[in-house]
């Protein structure tokens, strides 16, 4: 029996209007989603569709102006930030390491939701941090300085830090952005594996083929609305992608007729 730990109902977000600058600017509205344990929900859409704002609303970092997010059937705003951080882990986009912390120290910071204001991580926290590194397959990097890592390795460190929070829900904002093909696939593999282990995963992405790879559910966003929601193989049709992205792309199927990727006609 699968459950929906995180549910969004009629969610809308509008940046507050500034004095004398006309009406507020709507980012998205009427978004309803259910996040399922043990599977990946991919949020797809062109630039400016509202993907990042949506995932921040789901993470409780932004407060939606319409509708509500429910965590375990209770409104998200009734939880304290600390309570949320024990259930929902968020991996932001484009965070760069500033000081050369060791990888294990960065991952240990994921234990913050469980430590008091005056505490420093104990041995048990260290063990949990190392287990998190093990889960994403980079245990060997524990003693490395995070400023010496490649982009793909750093992304995996951030995912490990999120796992050290021992969350039920993992939110990732464009985890494959700025990575080369090999690192993209490695990160996607880890995300897929984490979903199989029972986590509810939400991840925004620019690449429709990533949604196809991750399977689960996909939500296609365009101009602040969800235009399609369902199995990636069902909803990601050539016609719909053309309409959303405004380019003549085709869905490519494998021998059994399962969609596996996209292609663009040759430029003339």
């Amino acid at each position, binding site marked *: 029996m699968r459950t929906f730990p995180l549910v969004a109902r009629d969610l809308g977000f509008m940046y507050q209007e500034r004095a004398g600058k006309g009406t507020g600017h709507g980012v998205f509205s009427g978004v309803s989603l259910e996040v399922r344990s043990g599977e990946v929900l991919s949020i797809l859409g062109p630039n400016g569709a509202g993907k990042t704002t949506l995932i921040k609303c789901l993470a409780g*970092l932004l407060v939606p102006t319409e509708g509500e997010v429910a965590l375990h059937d209770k409104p998200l705003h009734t939880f*304290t*930030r*600390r309570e949320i951080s024990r259930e929902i882990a968020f991996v*932001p986009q484009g*965070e760069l390491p500033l000081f050369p912390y060791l990888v294990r120290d960065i991952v240990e*910071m994921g234990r913050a939701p469980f430590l008091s204001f005056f505490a420093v991580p104990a041995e048990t926290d260290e063990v949990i941090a190392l287990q998190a590194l093990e889960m994403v397959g980079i245990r060997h990097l524990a003693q490395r300085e995070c400023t010496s890592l490649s982009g793909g390795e750093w992304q995996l460190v951030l995912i490990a*830090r999120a796992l050290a929070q021992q969350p039920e829900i993992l939110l990732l904002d464009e985890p494959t952005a700025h990575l080369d093909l090999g690192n993209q696939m490695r990160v996607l593999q880890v995300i897929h594996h984490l979903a199989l282990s029972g986590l509810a995963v939400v991840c925004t992405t620019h690449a429709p083929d990533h949604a196809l790879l991750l399977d689960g559910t996909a939500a296609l966003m365009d101009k602040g609305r969800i235009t399609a929601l369902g199995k990636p193989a069902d909803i990601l049709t050539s016609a719909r992608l053309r309409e959303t992205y405004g380019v003549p792309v085709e869905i490519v199927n494998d021998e059994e007729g399962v969609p596996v990727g996209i292609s663009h006609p040759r430029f003339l």
Partner: protein
Amino acid sequence: MTSSPTDTKCRSLVRFARLHPNVLYLVLLIGLGISVIIALVTGPVLVPYSTVFRLPQTLIGLCNPEGTDQSLTIMEIRFSRVLAAGLVGAGLSVSGAVLQGLFRNPLVSSHILGVTPGAGLGAACAILIGASLPIIALFSFIGGMGALCLTIAIAGTRSAYGSIMLVLAGIICGALFQALTALVKYLADPGDLLPSIVFWLMGSFNHLTPAILLYASILILLPVAFLIAIRWQVSLLSLGEESVQSLGVDLRTLVLLILISTALIASASVAIAGMIGWVGLLVPNVVRILTGPDYRILIPACALCGAVYLISADTLARSLTFYEIPIGIITAMIGAPVLILLMRRETGWWQ
């Protein structure tokens, strides 16, 4: 980036400090002891080394020597200076380190929030009206804390975290207070008041009274102890704002507590010793090479190193020439070249 042999040596040092912080603290404590003893026996009047060992008994009042022991009296005076220098050095270094983490910028110190210029203005005003030493200290403390309030008010409560707004507001306040200080100097009688103001602003441990020392010690020690206690929370601030919040940290409260603590330290420091620059900027950047960026080790190490540094700088200020050199000049003269060395070593620093 290629790593030179010195880099590798520093790496292994960092690793050692990370694994055995207590050994590092012990070494620094021994260094502190040595710098205190040197400071006690150095000065225009020569005193025998043996007096150093009689000092602790006198201080806790175990034996009450007849008032004729001149060397002991001199050493007691020197000891209060050493205490003040140690406290101010530790405080400024810790607050510099913490603010650098908060603003995610290694070039920040308590100057950036306008606190030090505000405290300087307070002191200058008090000297202008011919106030006594305790009143000068009080004014400068009020000036510093007032500057923090003004900075936060200008930045607005919404942008609580390490934002550009806070830095900009701090720079604006600092510039304003410096202009007002210049005005006070202009108004001051060039015969006696102007030199006093100028000397105060250069920094010195020359104008201590027991009462000032007592209150300032409390106002520096409490926030330093608090910052040491929350050192891991300070570490978290090195992450991005969204990460910190998604880890369940109440960012606004944490930032406010840090701002108040560092402002207390800076204001109390100016109140006892005038404006001493470069400590909060230099010490954390040097210590970071020894300990790495981990605030769990960096903050206690900064407290110890800062104390050693300012005690030694004060010893130099007292003994280099026949007249005492203002300590602010000494710290700037040491700070500038060392920072240049750091810049050349850490190639990625200003790029």
